């Protein structure tokens, strides 16, 4: 089995590029036999064929198919109209899922952008900037699964009176002896916040790096001029820096929104959605594999897509404008 899959992988790694190269050679050979005007018309499509074939089969067709499935019942045998959609917005459990996603959306995005911005501003003024930035960016490199394990250990709970082995409870009980150790992931009034903190820990580095690059692009002369006019550091930041980097903040925010809507791994690893921590992607997974309810699972996917469409249009507009310049 090991040998077989190794051989298969080697074949894929060398065979796929070789096959594609052969394909494009044949294409060029065939095309050059045609009339010149016909060549120009046909060649681009032949260069695009591999990509368009894969995209149609594995992205375009599935998206359309999922849209259709969302109007069908569990095993996709009967048309049931909007019933799945109605259930999402009326079922109590589903409403909790939606509430959780909304919490993630608002607080994760807000805190990540704010803390990222704060760190970007502060690191700009110290000598150990690179080291600090690398440290904070590091969680972006590891998997959400590993991050989930890391934080499950941080949140580990031991009853009051016994030594705490989870860092969070240990620090809080040391700082304030009257503090009751918390089961952060099991207490329904705080577990969502505990999960959101993990997301923030992972993504802040991302926000920081982009915002930091943007802050470095703010002309020094403008800031100096403001200081000479008697503006304090806070005024310089809010009146000069902030308005200039606003477009970047928008980009960071939309990117975070796209990613937080689909959040799955953190919840899957840390609580698996129990005790009111489920989010849309996790619920979808459960509808697929535990309940075999493919209609509902598709509807949840469509809901994600609908939530992302405004951001998608914004993206297309932005790239469209830039694309014309080339």
């Amino acid at each position, binding site marked *: 089995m090991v040998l077989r899959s190794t051989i298969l*992988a080697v074949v894929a790694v060398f065979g796929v590029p070789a096959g594609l190269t052969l394909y494009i050679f044949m294409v*060029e050979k065939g095309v050059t036999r045609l009339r010149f005007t016909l060549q120009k018309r046909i060649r681009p499509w032949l260069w695009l064929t591999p990509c368009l074939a894969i995209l149609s089969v594995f992205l375009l067709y599935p998206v359309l198919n999922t849209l259709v499935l969302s109007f069908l019942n569990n095993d996709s045998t009967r048309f049931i109209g909007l019933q799945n959609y109605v259930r999402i917005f009326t079922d109590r459990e589903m409403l909790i899922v939606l509430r959780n996603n909304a919490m993630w959306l608002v607080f994760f995005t807000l805190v990540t952008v704010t803390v990222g911005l704060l760190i970007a501003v502060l690191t700009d003024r110290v000598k150990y900037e690179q080291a600090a930035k690398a440290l904070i960016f590091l969680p972006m490199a590891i*998997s959400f699964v590993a991050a989930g*394990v890391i934080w499950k*250990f941080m949140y580990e709970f031991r009853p009051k009176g016994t030594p705490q082995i989870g860092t969070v409870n240990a620090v809080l009980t040391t700082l304030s002896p009257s503090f009751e150790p918390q089961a952060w992931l099991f207490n329904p009034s705080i577990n969502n916040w505990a999960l959101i903190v993990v997301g923030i820990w992972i993504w802040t580095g991302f926000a920081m790096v982009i915002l930091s690059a943007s802050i470095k692009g703010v002309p020094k002369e403008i800031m100096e001029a403001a200081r000479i006019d008697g503006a304090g550091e806070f005024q310089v930041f809010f009146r000069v820096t902030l308005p200039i980097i606003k477009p970047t903040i928008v980009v960071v925010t939309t*990117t975070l929104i796209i990613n937080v809507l689909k959040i799955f*791994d953190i919840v899957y690893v840390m609580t698996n959605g129990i005790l009111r921590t489920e989010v849309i992607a996790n619920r979808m997974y459960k509808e697929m594999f535990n309940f075999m309810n493919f209609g509902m699972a598709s509807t949840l996917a469509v809901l994600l897509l609908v939530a992302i469409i405004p951001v*998608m249009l914004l993206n297309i507009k932005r*790239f469209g404008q830039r694309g014309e310049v*080339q």
Partner: protein
Amino acid sequence: MKGERHITGWVIRFMRKSPIHLVLLTICVIWLVPTLGLFVSSLRPRALILNTGWWKAFNAPLLFTIQNYLHVIQRANMGRSFFNSLMIAIPATVMPILVAAFAAYAFSWMRFPGRDVLFLMIIGLLVVPLQMTLIPILRLFNSLHLTGTFVGIWVAHTAYGLPFAIYLLRNFIGGIPEDLFESAFLDGANHVQIFYRLVLPIAVPAIASLSIFQFMWVWNDLLVALIYLGGTPEVAPMTVTISNLVNSYGGGWEFLTSAAFISMLLPLLVFFSLQRYFIRGILAGSIKG
């Protein structure tokens, strides 16, 4: 005298900035401690992990062990999972590159009706949640007997990586100066020659960023592997194995800490050795579905 004044000046500047240092260093500690705690714990014997905090590890007597690592590699399928993660990630990184490069070349340097609209559609696909594709592709794979096979997940990751790969390479290849192409055409080169002799060599930095991003994305992926591989130990990558460990062992911290750290080794290595390419890739690709 001069040196003394230099030091005094440094101290004064440092003091004036002390609130900045305080806030920043606190944040750095908060960001470091979780990973550090995991790493220290992974090297402690089971009885100690479960009864005392990891920060006590530095008190005498110092008791460290690599037993946890040996255990998860041999018994908890982590050795095999490491191999599987490589088996999944390497082909899934290589496969989309040429496909995307062909498309990027056509989008940049060939004129055809519908070019811009088509490209914008691909930009749109960039943010489509991959959840939208799971059920139809799973059904397709089931009927082709591709579920639970590496081939299936390679193809899936290739498709999911394509829109971003095309976008990134098109930006780069589109930025190559036009003069280079004109002189090559005048020398009688055809499109294939230009693509392999001129475009690909120039695009190496972009391909490097793309490869690193795609590799890390696949390496760290859980959802796609869960769906198309279905958790069979023979094909499970490390992310799937670890999440199974979390569910079955619950508080088995001696396994979880070492397993998680094994899965972080390669990403950390990539991060520290290729930081520039990695950050460039992740910034450009953060909007990927």
